C-alpha cells in the first residue's frame, strides 16, 4: 500500500495523468495479489493520486489532476508569495482530514445503504443502472446527446460475445475469438489510458518539452503551522468534506466536480469572499478536503450497491470481479474481511500519504524534467504488458489496440468517455437484472409501479433534462417549475416505499415543492417572456 500511495502521489502530480489513469495502470500489478492486497494497493494509489495533484498545482500553477483545479486558485498565489511550504502543508493536511471524514462516513453509511439495497429487486437494479448512465451523460456538459450515445455504445460493447444468461454468442461475425466478449481491462485501458496518452503527445512541440519549467524545485513542508491553520478552519473542512462525500455518492460526479463546488461554497460562506484567489488558506482547505472525501462517497455506492459512480470506482469493481468477488448489497455481510479491509485501507492510506508526501515531492521534481513523449511511449508498452498479463492471450492486446483507436477517435470528436466506460461496466448488470425481472414476471409496468424502480427512473428522467435546465435557466419560463415538479414527482415513489420515515420524507418533499412554487409567485419573474 505504501508503494501504491507513492505511485499515486507521483502520478497525480504529473499534469496530464489523471487519478483514474494511475488506478487503471495499477490494476495489472494486482493480478498476483489476493483481493485484499490488490484492493488496498489500488486504494493507496487512489488516495495518493488525489493528494498528489496539489503539488504541481501549487508549485507551477498547472493542476496535476482535474481534482485539484480549484486548489490552484489560492495554492499557487500563496506559493508565489513566498510561502510554498505552508501552501503545500495546508493542502496535505486538508486532504488528510477530508479523507478521514470521508472514511468515517464510508464506514458508517455503507452498511446502512447496503441494508436499503437489500430491498431492491431486479427491476430496481435495472432502473438504478439507467439512472447511473443518464446522470453520467448529463454531466458531460454541452455534449448531452453525445454522452448518452457514448453510454449506449458502452452497453453495446458489453453485449458483444456470449450472453451471460443463455450462453448464446452475439455479434461474433464469424470470429471465434470474440465469443468470449471483450475483457473489461483491455477495453478500459484502451478507451481511457491509451487514448489519453496519444492525446498527450498530439502536440509535437509540447510533447518534446519537459513537463514543468526548469525552475521547479522541492520545498520543505511546514507541517505544524499547516495543521494549526487547517484545524482552525474545521467548519470549512467539515462542510467541504460532506460536499465531497455526497458528490461521490452521486453517480457520475467525481472529485473533479466536488473540488470546485466546495471552493465555491467556501467563497459564498466566507466573510471576505474578495480575498479568494489571492492566496488564502480557506481557498486551499475547501477543495483539498472535498476531493479526498469524494472517493469515500463513491466507494459507498460500490460497496453497498455494486454500482460504480465514476471511472475510478469502475476499475475497483473490475478488480473485485477479477478476484471473483461480486459487490452487491450483501457484499459487506458476506465478505466482511474484504469489506472491512477496504475501510481500513482507505483510513490507513491517508496516514501513509502524509508521510510520503515530502519524499514524493523530490521524485516529482525529477520526473517533471522528463518530456511527455518519453513517458507516453514507455507507458504504452507497460499498458500492453499489463493487459497481456490478465489472461495471457494475444486477443486482449488487439482489444486494447482497437479500443485505443476508438477512444482516440471519440475523444477528438467530442464524445465523453466516462459514460461509455460506465456502460461497458454496467451493461452486464443491466442485462442480468432485466433477465431476472422478466423471468419472475413479464409485466413491464412493474418498472414504474415498484417504488424504488420508479424513484430511480424519475431521477433518470430529471437528470436527462438537467442540462437543458442549466442552459435555459433564467431565460425560459419552464425552468421555474423544474425543481417544484421534481420535488412532487420524486415524492410519489417515496410515499409508496412504506414505513414511517419515508412517507414523512415524501410529505416534506411535497412541502418543499409548494414552498418553491409560492416563492416563485412572490418574486418578479426573471425570464424573458418572449422566449
Amino acid at each position, binding site marked *: 500500500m505504501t508503494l501504491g500511495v507513492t505511485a499515486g502521489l507521483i502520478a497525480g502530480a504529473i499534469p496530464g495523468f489523471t487519478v483514474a489513469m494511475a488506478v487503471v495502470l495499477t490494476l495489472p500489478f494486482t493480478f498476483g495479489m489476493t483481493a485484499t492486497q490488490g484492493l488496498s494497493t489500488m486504494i493507496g494509489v487512489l488516495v495518493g493520486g488525489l493528494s498528489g495533484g496539489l503539488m504541481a498545482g501549487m508549485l507551477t500553477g498547472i493542476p496535476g489532476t482535474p481534482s485539484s483545479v480549484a486548489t490552484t486558485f489560492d495554492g499557487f498565489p500563496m506559493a508565489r508569495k513566498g510561502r510554498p511550504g505552508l501552501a503545500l502543508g495546508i493542502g496535505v493536511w486538508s486532504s488528510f482530514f477530508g479523507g478521514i471524514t470521508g472514511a468515517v462516513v464510508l464506514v458508517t453509511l455503507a452498511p446502512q445503504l447496503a441494508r436499503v439495497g437489500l430491498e431492491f429487486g431486479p427491476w430496481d437494479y435495472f432502473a438504478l443502472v439507467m439512472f447511473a448512465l443518464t446522470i453520467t451523460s448529463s454531466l458531460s456538459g454541452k455534449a448531452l446527446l453525445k454522452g448518452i450515445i457514448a453510454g449506449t455504445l458502452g452497453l453495446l460493447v458489453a453485449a458483444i460475445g456470449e450472453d451471460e*444468461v443463455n450462453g448464446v*454468442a452475439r455479434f461474433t461475425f464469424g470470429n471465434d475469438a470474440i465469443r468470449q466478449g471483450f475483457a473489461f481491462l483491455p477495453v478500459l485501458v484502451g478507451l481511457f489510458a491509451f487514448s489519453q496518452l496519444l492525446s498527450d503527445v498530439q502536440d509535437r512541440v509540447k510533447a518534446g518539452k519537459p513537463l514543468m519549467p526548469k525552475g521547479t524545485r522541492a520545498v520543505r513542508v511546514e507541517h505544524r503551522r499547516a495543521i494549526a491553520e487547517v484545524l482552525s478552519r474545521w467548519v470549512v473542512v467539515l462542510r467541504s468534506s460532506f460536499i465531497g462525500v455526497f458528490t461521490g455518492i452521486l453517480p457520475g460526479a467525481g472529485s473533479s466536480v466536488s473540488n470546485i463546488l466546495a471552493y465555491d461554497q467556501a467563497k459564498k460562506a466566507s466573510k471576505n469572499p474578495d480575498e479568494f484567489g489571492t492566496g488564502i488558506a480557506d481557498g486551499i482547505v475547501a477543495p483539498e478536503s472535498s476531493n479526498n472525501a469524494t472517493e469515500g462517497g463513491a466507494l459507498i455506492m460500490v460497496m453497498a450497491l455494486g454500482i460504480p459512480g465514476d471511472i475510478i470506482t469502475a476499475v475497483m469493481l473490475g478488480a473485485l470481479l477479477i478476484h471473483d468477488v461480486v459487490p452487491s448489497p450483501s457484499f459487506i455481510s458476506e465478505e466482511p474481511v474484504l469489506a472491512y479491509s477496504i475501510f481500513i485501507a482507505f483510513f490507513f492510506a491517508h496516514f501513509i500519504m502524509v508521510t510520503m508526501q515530502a519524499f514524493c515531492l523530490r521524485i516529482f521534481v525529477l520526473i517533471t524534467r522528463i518530456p511527455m513523449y518519453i513517458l507516453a511511449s514507455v507507458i504504452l508498452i507497460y499498458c500492453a504488458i499489463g493487459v497481456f498479463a490478465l489472461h495471457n492471450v494475444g486477443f486482449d492486446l488487439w482489444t486494447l489496440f482497437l479500443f485505443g483507436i476508438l477512444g482516440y477517435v471519440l475523444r*477528438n470528436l467530442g464524445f465523453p468517455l466516462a459514460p461509455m466506460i460506465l456502460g461497458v461496466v454496467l451493461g452486464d448488470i*443491466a442485462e442480468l437484472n432485466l433477465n431476472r425481472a422478466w423471468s419472475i414476471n413479464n409485466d413491464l409496468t412493474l418498472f414504474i409501479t415498484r417504488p424504488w424502480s420508479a424513484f430511480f427512473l424519475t431521477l433518470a428522467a430529471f437528470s436527462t433534462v438537467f442540462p437543458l435546465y442549466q442552459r435555459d435557466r433564467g431565460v425560459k419560463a419552464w425552468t421555474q417549475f423544474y425543481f417544484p415538479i421534481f420535488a412532487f414527482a420524486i415524492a410519489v415513489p417515496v410515499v409508496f416505499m412504506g414505513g414511517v420515515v419515508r412517507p414523512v420524507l415524501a410529505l416534506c418533499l411535497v412541502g418543499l415543492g409548494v414552498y418553491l412554487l409560492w416563492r416563485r409567485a412572490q418574486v418578479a419573474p426573471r425570464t424573458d417572456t418572449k422566449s
Partner: protein
Amino acid sequence: MRRFHVDTLVAIFLLVFCGVFLAATFSIRETSYASLGAEVWPRVILVFLTVLSLAYFVQSLRREPVERQTPEPRGLKQWFLHHLNAFWCFLWFGLFLLTLPYLGMLVGGMLFVYVTLTSLGRRDLHGHALHAAIAVISVGAMWAIFTYGLKVFLPTGSLFY
C-alpha cells in the same frame, strides 16, 4: 454544404453501424429454454442508439457543431500533421502486435519503445542513444518485474526458441 460537417458524417456512420448490428441480431441463435432471448437486450440498445443517432443527425444539420476538446485542423494535410504523432503510435503498436509471436514481448517491446520514441522525439545521434537506453532499461525492468516478480508468463517469441 457548409452544414455538412463532421458531426453529420459521424451520425451517418452511426446509423449505418446500427443497421449492420440490427441485421446481425437476426443471426443470433434462438433458444427454447430462455425466458428472454439473447437477442432482445442488444435490440433494445440498438433501437435506442438508432433513435439517438437520428437525433444527432438532425442536430448536426440544425446547428453548429459543439465545442471539441481539440481545435479542428483545416485541410487534409493539416489534419494529417495534427494527428501524425498518434498515427506513428498506432502504426508501431500495430506492427508490435503483428510481430509479437515472432519477436516476443521483451525484444518486440524494446523495439516498439525505441521506434516510437525516435518517431515522436529527437532524431540525432544523442537522441538515438538515449532512446535505445530508455527502451532497454524500461522494457527490461518491466519484463523482469512481471516474469520474476509477479510470475506472469510473457511471450518469448518463436525466433528465440
